[in-house]
């Protein structure tokens, strides 16, 4: 079974600064996807970014980018020019790829609470 670990329960960053959230995962599969979700106080889960394991290039979405290290099974999220609206709980998630033959549902980490300081 796959596991996802987020070792930082809480992080804080000054507005306009950069912060990196860590995520590691354990899997024996070679075909999979990784995601970062954001959960603001409204509790709604919002997809931030995704990465296909077969792609070497790190995904980016505006101020959000990932550092995907497949051999190390690491998938960190970098938020540049942090804004007050970035304050939220961030979840890393894993999903098996089409060739895995498994149920292919998301496995979530335990989350990192990000505080943005004005």
């Amino acid at each position, binding site marked *: 079974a796959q596991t996802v670990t987020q070792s930082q329960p809480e992080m804080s960053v000054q507005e306009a600064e950069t912060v990196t959230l860590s995520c590691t995962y354990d899997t024996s599969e070679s075909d999979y*996807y990784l*995601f970062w979700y954001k959960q603001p106080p*409204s*509790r*709604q*889960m*919002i*997809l931030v970014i*995704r990465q296909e394991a077969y792609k070497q290039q790190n995904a980016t979405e505006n101020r959000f980018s990932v550092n995907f290290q497949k051999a190390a099974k690491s998938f960190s999220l970098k938020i540049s020019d942090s804004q007050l609206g970035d304050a939220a*709980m961030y*979840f890393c*998630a894993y*999903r098996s790829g089409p060739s895995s033959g498994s*149920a*292919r*549902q*998301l496995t*979530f980490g*335990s*989350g990192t609470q990000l505080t943005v300081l004005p």
Partner: protein
Amino acid sequence: DTAVSQTPKYLVTQMGNDKSIKCEQNLGHDTMYWYKQDSKKFLKIMFSYNNKELIINETVPNRFSPKSPDKAHLNLHINSLELGDSAVYFCASSPDRVGGEKLFFGSGTQLSVL
């Protein structure tokens, strides 16, 4: 317009009661889910329905019974509520059977069992 809406947002009830949480999606998606987020923020899938058919049923007590009257609705009924059922329950939908980038979540129902 809210894509995935669930009611109520908050639910406080006594142990032993039966309660329901309703979920509706207006995205035309074929698949709907129930997730449970415990007090430590762990988020785990409970059920998944595709076109009203149950496709995923994780290890959940049979006191939890999902009901899908049509593919736009997936309700969760819980019998004989226990203290350990206190959590936030999220409904979600996706256009296909797998979750991920096309997964839309509702805003959650915070259930408190006293």
